[in-house]
């Protein structure tokens, strides 16, 4: 699809905004609708749009397979380790109140971090599945 000039230009214009929107959904999930799952899907769809318009090979150079694979594991690890850190600081597993001196600030921090972990895993899995599908066709 690389010869479609309009598609290429529009995709190039849209992709930064899609990513920005994903980050907004990610970090604004505390205040409005959204969170890690939705943000991850939106962030992944930015890569999928890029791969659709510019080809899978080009997209694989932007998001190499090893980076996507480690992203899958890193997000899940980030979530689990947050729970362990809370334990290490004297709380229960995943009890974010122990993360900071102020329980409310600790909760806020914990929620932000685990949502980030969720987002990274979801985005990486979406990209990996799409590349898996698209890579088989050629």
């Amino acid at each position: 699809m690389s010869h479609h000039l309009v598609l290429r230009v529009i995709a190039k214009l849209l992709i930064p905004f899609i990513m920005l929107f994903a980050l907004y959904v990610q970090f604004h999930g505390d205040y409005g609708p959204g969170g890690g799952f939705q943000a991850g899907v939106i962030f992944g769809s930015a890569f999928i749009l890029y791969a659709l318009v510019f080809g899978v090979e080009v997209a694989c150079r932007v998001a190499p397979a090893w980076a996507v694979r480690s992203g899958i594991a890193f997000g899940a690890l980030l979530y689990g380790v947050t729970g362990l850190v809370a334990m290490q600081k004297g709380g229960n597993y995943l009890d974010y109140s122990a993360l900071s001196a102020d329980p409310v600030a600790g909760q806020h921090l914990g929620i932000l971090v685990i949502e980030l972990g969720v987002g990274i895993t979801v985005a990486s899995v979406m990209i990996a599945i799409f590349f898996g599908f698209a890579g088989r066709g050629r």
Partner: protein
Amino acid sequence: MALTVFMVVRLRNLFAVVMLGGIYSLLAASLLVVLDAVDVAFTEAAVGAGISTVLALGALSLTTSQENETRRNPLYTAMIGFVVLVTGAALVFGSLDMPHYGDPEAPVHRHVADRYIADGQRETGVPNIVTAVLASYRGFDTLGEVMVIFTAGIGVLLAFSAAKPSRGKMPDDGEEGGKP
């Protein structure tokens, strides 16, 4: 929505079926917005209408976009119909016991929901109760969900890399596995 499902069942063109699936998800998302569940609607619109449609199209590009006509034994069809009808009737029968929509006496509203609504913001400092419940009060559940997604991703990666031609001779299905 019922019309969309009917069309999905009847149509033979799989491309149209995939598109109708996306439309169905979008309708479901609108329904969830009407029910004031914006977080779920958001997910449904992004995953159901967006990513699933793209992935289904990707799968279609590996196969054909026309469903094969199959002739089934009428007795077999009747049996399927019977099972579907009985299961549907059982589900409808089960739903008769459920509390009405918005009933304040429903068990789900009398258990811990009150506490979340009353203390959630004070305890977590997060105005969006859905996020507070999902990430903090139900942190274990969400960890499990992330693990499900993690496992699914690993499984898909394994399934695709297992079909690589580098691992000996493939049965001649004319397909060449690429690097995921």
